[in-house]
């Protein structure tokens, strides 16, 4: 029986087609007319221009002083290494870095080159799960735009020149104990780097260290320090929560803590099979993935967050909280919070984000204290990130301007781009007599520094770092550097005056002390496991008793700054996979947007893509507007990370630079105004329509609606004879947080090409797996849904019937196969596909032969040429590998032995794959679940990919905020 939720029934939520339908404004009407037959400029060349450039730039890099081998010469082994078996990948446990934290990975290396990163399954914090940044790190490794050799004033130099220059600098510094020497770095968790910094400060006691982070946990640590009166980091224990209440905190959104939070949240959510296991209440100014999942979402301007926090505190009986004025909607929401927290001592959690500042966080901390959550669902540790007593970037700039700085050493951070423009870091750096930049790219900062030193990628260097829970990973190289690069530890060793040493010497030295006599064994164990057991110990602290003034909110509009969902603070701007990844709620690619509420857009008579000017204080920026359903009326969201000028050929000149208006003092919430401009642009959007329109496409069930599923629809066709295994997939819509980790993992595993903004605009993105975003309800206060849509692998597949040449066929295990070399490109399969999951190579989207991107390709997956259809294969190469392994041991394939790339990456374990012939497999078990349903079941395609409906937390759930 189908449970159709009729969105058009009386009293149900109203559905809407697009924001413009609600307006009679002729300009809105004009936008509707213009949206569809959008004037499209087709790219002038068959291939993406930038990839040609990638190839060209690579050739240049080969000419200009790269001493070591490059990709151009790939010779077979003369003497094959004893453990190397050609064709068999090797796996290394290491980590890549985000915001200074280790993201533990198992790197798959084919013939000495890493091709795929996956989470480290043994790691206590991430349990083998991934996020988009971790998945994409391998492409950044092969980026031909990376800095390939050291340079001085833009002229290529050798490392010997660098070393002698460092020697001269050391002489100078020694004379005045490092007076005027400043180190500027991004947040780091590396024990070795922190040890080296300490050693450096011992040698030069007057040198100072500054930390700059444009986004991420640095700001959270500052707030936490203000609230608890001591430096600390917060750790949410979401797995034990029955109720989670958030104020502008996208804890399931991108960031270093996403994987751990998503794991915990989804575990709690799945605690029971007949009702949702936890309840999430969110108050948000700007819609986020977390808010989209909330049972009860309140829309409130950013400036309301401290008020809401205090009102909640007052309602929950926190001492000292007065009862502020709240609107009716806010009061309803708070009543819901109080109701949900009843009898949940120690099983609830209140969290707050950055826009509400310390004033909000202080009330939240007191509520957690009051409800007994502290120490149970909320834990504190000492800061994992260092260095502890670092100054800020603002301090550094004022010191430079006061002529107190003679030497500036910038390590792996790009303040010229990512600092608030009002600090004018670029001008400041020019005033420093001697400046050194060590970074992956010759970026905006590198271009202004006297010396630009190329940094080794984490996958090609020795290092160590702590994961979000404080567990240490030793980073080992998976490939020897192919550019003339050095690790940060190598450079520090030179700064410390050390002679040339082994690349892992600094790391070994750090761990010598704690490993003691059993060093070699423990070192080997650490490299093998990918981590050294032992998370940071919890500490106890109480919220301060003083009051913190809420931020100044006198302006027209609240301007909220957020890191971009895919390129973060801009450091991933040159990673094509991340640029082309549709952003979680907007599906915009290759650009950032200025998100406003539907009401504000209507006031401005502006539509998606119209240029608007944002003014904060005396600074302006211009960018494309995006109407964000469910955004608070007077809040404008700006996304960091775009408008770069020296990111590389992939990342330059997309979007606007939000740092231009970001205030140094209040970097997360500012006051400003908005003005519509005459110009507009076509955004590269992958999903143009979001209304559900009464269609039963993303199903919801309430606990009362769960029923036993009925047998499959009858079919006139005889079933296919099944071989031993029959593969199937179940996707739990209730667990999907729309994070895109699956899409990125699929891109990496299956050599999915990047096609560029023009092709995305033309509707030709190549992702085999898309996350559909749907809205229902009122445009101002919608409910949002995420629905991953891979190939359905239909038993009665319309595509198979359409192909005239047998290029798409059904195998005996039920997989709908795509035979690339048989495909002649009639596109009939795609025309007939009701799910439109097939992707076509309209042009030759392959990289040019000389491009280093080839090194990142999975050798087990064909690279498709022009004119060929492609689609999700259920990672057939992994199925075949499992068959080989099982056949060798003469045993059946075990449940869970075949793991698709999307399944492996999913941080909430929403995707389950397995053998549906085995009634005991997890996928079979889920197919018997009461929430199980089939997408477009009425078509009789009998898909192998099916879904579990999302929970609607209760029947009376409010959608009106």
């Amino acid at each position, binding site marked *: 029986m189908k449970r159709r939720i009729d969105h058009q029934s009386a009293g149900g939520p109203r559905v809407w087609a697009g924001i413009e339908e609600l307006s009679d404004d002729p300009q809105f009407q004009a936008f509707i007319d213009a949206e569809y037959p959008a004037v499209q400029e087709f790219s002038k060349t068959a291939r993406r221009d930038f990839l040609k450039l990638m190839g060209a730039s690579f050739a240049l890099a080969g000419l200009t002083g790269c001493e070591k081998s490059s990709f151009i010469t790939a010779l077979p082994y003369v003497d094959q290494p004893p453990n190397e078996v050609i064709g068999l990948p090797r796996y290394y446990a290491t980590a890549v870095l985000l915001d200074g934290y280790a993201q533990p990975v198992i790197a798959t290396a084919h013939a000495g080159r890493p091709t795929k990163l996956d989470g480290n399954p043994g790691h206590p914090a991430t349990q083998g799960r991934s996020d988009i940044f971790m998945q994409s790190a391998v492409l950044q490794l092969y980026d031909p735009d990376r800095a390939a050799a050291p340079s001085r004033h833009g002229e290529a130099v050798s490392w010997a020149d660098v070393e002698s220059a460092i020697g001269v600098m050391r002489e100078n510094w020694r004379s005045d104990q490092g007076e005027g020497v400043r180190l500027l770095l991004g947040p780091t968790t590396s024990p070795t780097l922190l040890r080296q910094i300490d050693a450096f400060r011992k040698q030069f006691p007057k040198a100072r260290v500054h930390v700059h982070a444009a986004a991420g946990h640095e700001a959270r640590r500052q707030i936490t320090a203000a609230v608890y009166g001591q430096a600390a980091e917060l750790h949410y224990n979401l797995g034990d929560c029955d109720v989670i209440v958030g104020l502008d905190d996208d804890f399931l959104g991108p960031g270093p803590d996403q994987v751990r939070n998503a794991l915990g949240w989804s575990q709690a959510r799945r605690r029971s099979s007949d009702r949702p296991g936890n309840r999430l209440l969110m108050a948000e100014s700007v819609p986020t993935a977390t808010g989209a999942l909330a049972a009860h979402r309140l829309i409130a301007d950013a400036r309301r967050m401290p008020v809401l926090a205090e009102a909640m505190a007052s309602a929950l009986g926190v001492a000292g909280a007065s009862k502020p004025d709240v609107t009716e909607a806010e009061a309803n929401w708070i009543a819901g919070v109080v109701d949900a927290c009843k009898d949940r001592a120690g099983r609830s959690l209140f969290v707050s984000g950055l826009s509400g500042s310390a004033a909000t966080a202080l009330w939240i901390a007191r509520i957690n204290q009051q409800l007994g959550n502290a120490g149970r669902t909320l834990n504190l540790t000492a800061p994992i990130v260092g260095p502890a007593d670092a100054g800020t970037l603002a301090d550094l700039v004022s010191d430079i301007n006061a002529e107190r700085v003679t030497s500036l050493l910038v390590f792996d951070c790009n303040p010229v781009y990512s600092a608030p423009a009002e600090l004018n870091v670029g001008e400041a750096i020019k005033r420093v007599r001697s400046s050194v930049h060590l970074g992956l790219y010759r970026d905006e900062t590198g271009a202004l520094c006297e010396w630009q030193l190329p940094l080794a990628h984490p996958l090609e260097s020795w290092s160590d770092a702590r994961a979000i829970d404080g567990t240490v990973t030793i980073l080992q190289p998976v490939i020897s550097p192919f550019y003339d690069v050095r690790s940060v530890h190598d450079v520090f060793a030179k700064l410390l005056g050390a002679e040339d040493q082994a690349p892992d010497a600094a790391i070994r030295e750090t761990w010598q002390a704690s490993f003691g006599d059993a060093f070699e064994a423990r070192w080997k164990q650490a490299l093998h496991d990918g981590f050294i057991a032992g998370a940071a110990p919890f500490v106890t602290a109480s919220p301060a008793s003083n009051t913190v003034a809420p931020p100044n909110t006198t302006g027209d509009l609240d301007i909220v700054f957020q890191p971009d969902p895919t390129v973060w603070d801009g450091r991933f701007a040159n990673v094509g996979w991340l640029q082309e990844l549709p952003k979680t709620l907007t599906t915009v690619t290759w650009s950032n947007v200025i998100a406003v509420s539907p009401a504000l857009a209507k006031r401005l008579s502006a539509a998606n893509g119209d240029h608007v000017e944002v003014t904060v204080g005396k600074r302006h920026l211009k960018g494309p507007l995006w109407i964000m359903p469910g955004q608070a009326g007077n809040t404008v969201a700006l996304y960091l990370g775009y408008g770069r000028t020296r990111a590389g050929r992939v990342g330059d000149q997309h979007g606007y630079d939000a740092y231009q208006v970001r205030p140094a003092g209040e970097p997360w919430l500012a006051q400003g105004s908005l003005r519509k401009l005459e110009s507009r642009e076509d955004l590269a959007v992958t999903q143009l329509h979001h209304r559900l329109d009464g269609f039963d*496409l993303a199903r919801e069930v309430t606990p009362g609606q769960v029923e036993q599923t009925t047998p499959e629809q009858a079919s006139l066709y005889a079933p296919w004879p099944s071989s031993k295994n029959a593969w199937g997939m179940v996707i739990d819509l209730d667990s999907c947080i729309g994070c895109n980790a699956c899409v990125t993992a699929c891109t990496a595993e299956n050599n999915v090409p990047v096609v560029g903004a023009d092709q995305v605009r033309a509707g030709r993105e190549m992702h085999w797996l898309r996350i559909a975003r749907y809205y229902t309800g009122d445009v101002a206060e919608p409910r949002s849904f995420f629905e991953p849509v891979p190939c359905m692998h239909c038993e009665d597949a319309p595509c198979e019937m359409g192909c005239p040449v047998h290029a798409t066929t059904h195998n005996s295990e039920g997989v709908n196969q795509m035979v690339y070399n048989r*495909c002649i490109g009639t*596109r009939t399969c795609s025309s007939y596909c009701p799910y439109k999951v097939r992707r076509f190579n309209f042009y030759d989207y392959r990289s040019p032969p000389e491009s280093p991107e080839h090194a990142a390709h999975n050798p087990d997956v064909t690279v498709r040429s022009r004119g060929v259809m492609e689609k999700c294969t259920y990672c057939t190469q992994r199925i075949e590998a499992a068959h080989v392994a099982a056949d060798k041991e003469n045993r059946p394939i075990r449940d869970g032995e075949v793991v698709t790339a999307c399944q492996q990456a999913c941080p909430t374990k929403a995707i389950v794959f397995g053998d549906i012939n085995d009634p005991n497999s997890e996928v079979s078990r889920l197919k018997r679940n009461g929430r199980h349903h089939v997408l477009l079941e009425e078509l009789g395609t009998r898909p192998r990919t099916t879904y579990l409906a999302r929970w609607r937390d209760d029947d009376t759930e409010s959608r009106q905020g």
Partner: protein
Amino acid sequence: MSEQSDILPTRQSMGGIADQLTGIPLHFPADRRWLIAMTVASALLMLLMVSVVELFTRGVGIWGINIPVNWAFAIHNYVWWLGIGHAGTLISALLLLTGSEWRNSLNRFAETMTLFAVVCAGIYPILHLGRPWYVYWMFPYPATMGVWPQFRSPLEWDIWAVLTYLTVSLAFWYTGLIPDLAAARDRATRRGWQIFFGITALGWRGSARHWQRWQQTYRLTAGLAVPLVVSVHSEVSLLFAAGQIPGWHSTIFPPYFVLGAAFSGFAVVSIIAVSLRSWFGLQNLVTDDHLDLLGKVLLATGLMTGYGYVFEVFDAVYSGEAHEMQTLIDRFAGAYAWTYWGAVILNFIPLQALWWRAVRRTGWMLLLISASVVVGMWLERYMILVTSLYRDFLVSSWSHFTPSFWDWSTYFGTIGLFLVPFLIAIRLVPVISIFESKELLHKEKEEQQHG
């Protein structure tokens, strides 16, 4: 009988008709106009060649297609050209078999038109392919890997249908031409023409046995051609109807497509009839009565096509299926509603003027109405393709389609591909069947004398 059958003015001589019609290729009367037309047509053909080179060099990405609208102009124009082609066969073969002798003034150029329209249609399935160099994989040749085409696919049926149709149309056209080629040979004075017509006439001497065998062949081929019209375009409609896409998945599609094809084809026949008649002064052979009959046929097929429109709507509404209704609403009021209403208006509104006899008998009015139908039927195919694909089942895959420059250039280029051989045929072979006109005239005269 006598009233209707007097379609040709009887006050003309047999020899006069032969001289008049063979005179067109032998002493071409309209050199300048022909040259101008040929220049334009050649320019269009050049455009096609440039477009095809660009297409084969870069890929189908030069067109506006995307996912979900991954079929557009190539399939759309394929259907349009093929539909136009059908009228020639219908006029020649069907009316031959039913003994409607008024066809004799029209069949030759209608068949010629069919031939070249099918050629235009026939190149599209190749241009359409992502990898056109593998088009031969659609044929059941003895591949070393033992792979055969997939016979369940409507595209596979399509290849066979079109090739069969092209072969039979060519055979029918050529068979019908033989006696006239002989007539031209006998009147040719220059050596080159004598050899050309001598070879192409296959030694025709007009003996009774020749005529008897010829009659058998011609009627048999006609008997083959008529069901082919129905089967080919039914099959074309299955390209769509075999998919589950809302707006395509309908059992009315085969008759709807066949009638639509005949409709558009008769419109083109009318255009050519009116143009040639005024161009070469053939009012004595293509009479107002002919135009009157063409107008009636056009009106009839048009109304039958209109029935298809009505029932398409009825089917969707009657099914009550949400996605079918969505597509219907998209056609009525969506972003491409202009194609739907354009098709409805251009196909059926001017058509109604054909209820009046005076309109049917006025060349330029018939020409304008026919032109409107040709454009209308083009829009109809655009509508069927794009409005179904751009918003199918899953809202998350809804998108849009805008034809690119190369879409248009390829389309206009095929008009050149049609016109160039058609103009050459006008220049080289008698545009109206001489012997059949004479046969008809003879009959009429006999009846007059004996009646």
